[in-house]
């Protein structure tokens, strides 16, 4: 029961983008740890701004 509710909560957070920054940090660590020129991850505010701009670049809603 509790784990079910937890899973639903995770799904809602993921769907809404509430945990997008956490995902980004995880991804960043995985994808870039071996890069020659390591760039530190973006701050939460900066990441969020870019994330939103990118999300609305293109057809994202229809009739």
């Amino acid at each position, binding site marked *: 029961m509790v784990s079910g509710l937890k899973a639903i909560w995770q*799904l*809602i*957070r*993921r*769907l*809404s*983008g*509430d945990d*997008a*920054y956490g*995902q*980004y940090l995880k*991804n*960043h660590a995985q*994808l870039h740890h071996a890069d020659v020129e390591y760039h530190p991850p973006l701050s*939460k*505010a900066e*990441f*969020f*701004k870019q994330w*939103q*701009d*990118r*999300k*609305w*670049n*293109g*057809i*994202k*809603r*229809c*009739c």
Partner: protein
Amino acid sequence: MNKLLQNAIWVFVSVLGASAVGGIAFNRGENINALWFIAAALCVYAIAYRFYAAWIAVTVLGVDETRATPAERLEDGRDFVPTHKWVVFGHHFAAIAGPGPLVGPTLAAQFGYLPGTLWLLFGAVLGGCVQDMVTLFLSVRRDARTLGQMARDELGPIGGTAAAIGTFIIMIILIAVLGLVVVNAMKHSPWATFTVSATIPIAMIVGVYMRFIRPGEVLEGSLLGVVLLLLSVAGGRYIDGHETLRLWFDHEGLTLAWWVMAYGFAAAILPVWLLLAPRDYLSTYMKLGTISLLAVAIILLQPDVKMPAVTAFIDGTGPIFGGKLFPFVFITIACGAISGFHSLIASGTTPKLLGNERDIRMIGYGAMLLESFVAVMAMIAATVLDPGVFFAINSSAGVVGADAADAVAKISSWGYPVSVEQMQNLARQMGEATLFARTGGAPSLAVGMASIFGSAFGEGLLALWYHFAIMFEAIFILTTLDAGTRVGRMMLQDILGTVWPKMAQTAWTPSVVFSSALVVSGWGYFLYIGVIDPNGGVNILWPLFGIANQMLAAIALCVATGILVKSGKLRYAWVTGLPLAWLVIITSTAAWQKIASDDIRIGFFAAANDLTDKLAAGVLPPAKAAIAPQLVFNLHFDAWLTLFFVSLLWLIVLDMLRMCLRYLTGKPVLPLTESAYSTCRFHEDWMRD
């Protein structure tokens, strides 16, 4: 034993589905319970999903769960991100399901509940879902390329250009018709106008909250927004009751149309975090919440559908829009049955998130089934109203007369009794001055939803429910409107960039302002002609939108059919070829009638000539005579536009057939652009996200 049980369950679902479809199809003269619609829909969807969709996925497309998707191969943590299937499903559904499936069925209910419902069910499982799923599959196999790119790569430059032009124009018409729906819902309704206007500052508050106060806290910000939205619905009642304040929000359609245009322009040039993104959060939650609530209410309440199965208006004399059952029911209901717009989401956007090909059926086919279900609920909400009330709300003054007594007499003479007192009572209950001639579909849907919600969750709050429903429709109409204007602006900047490269810089202010203004004037023009049209405008704009949307669907199905043939799957090409043929038949017939019909309520030229004659004879009232030259110009313009749509459609169909013929006779064609196989890391369920 397990197998036997499964078979038994599917036999049961088939029998239940067949009885439910049969029940709603053959019921005559008596009210029928809405649960039959729900049962019919769920059974048809279940069978189609389990058997037809699975067969297409495995046999026709050959989805391969061991094959890496673009999200995995090109993963960059930004655009390409393999994502859990339910999250992809949520994003995909939120993107495809807009106001279209709510408005179309409401308008098509003038033919009775049956034609629209059957087309929603069978159009979706054989057409719309197939289009969405196949397009998704093809884009996944082509590095998540867009429909336009695939058309260019696989069919050639003609197909590519047609897809690009088609996409741009359909966007313009779509925004205009949606704008008209909102304007009609707000016209002379201070309460609705206040609530809808309040969504703008509320979105901005949420935007500022998420950007500066608590960056990235999406759920917190959205919760704040939803609470404010509900307060604004309640606050509208106060405004409506206040003698001075109500005047600020009491406007003519034309004034509101100018405001909607100003809003669209502002939304296209303001930063996305301030308006577009937060508004989209709110509209998505409102949409999902309200639709679930409606489903629960229908199941709890089990209302009776009062509209007859088929009305006399199948002969083309309907008050909401002119035209016979065939082809106009198929044009009026695009979204919910088959919508070309979806192919723009299914290609380019969703494939960048899809972690494994095996989920293509669930996301492509499944999400469209859910949209079709939303449309069936809209049909229920429209048809639980007394037919007399339904027609009184949706018939324009130009058709039934501006005087309430004339209108009820005319509507009652059709065999749908309604009285002035009944309409006045209803308007008072809903907190509106009048409900006569509130065309566009939104008010009648809101009355339907309010009566369902009211009966299920408390009768005393009808006015609140009504304005909640209006707010719910308006908020995501405006989301489509502002997102569409912005995308249109960027497309235009791209096009202008080919002439003068500096115009393509999406951050260069003069280019942004110029192209936004151009896009807004594009849809603003159609919105304007819709608002000044004495017959309510929906009669003109909605069929144009339907034809454009079906044309885009035909383009997507052309790409799909062409690729199936080129892949040596000629014997399965009917899977997309048959829906394509049907769309070509209905759009061509509808376009032909809109151009050539002698009936002034259908044919654009006939209406223009009629108006010219009346103007020359001096029989028009002065107000109408003043705008008559403009109306005549508009009608001519609409006719040429329809001709353009149908020519574009035939051009791409013939281009596709030419390519297929060349392939089948062994002549060279453009090569398939499917990307090479590489092995998927995530093919075990537990490995995925």
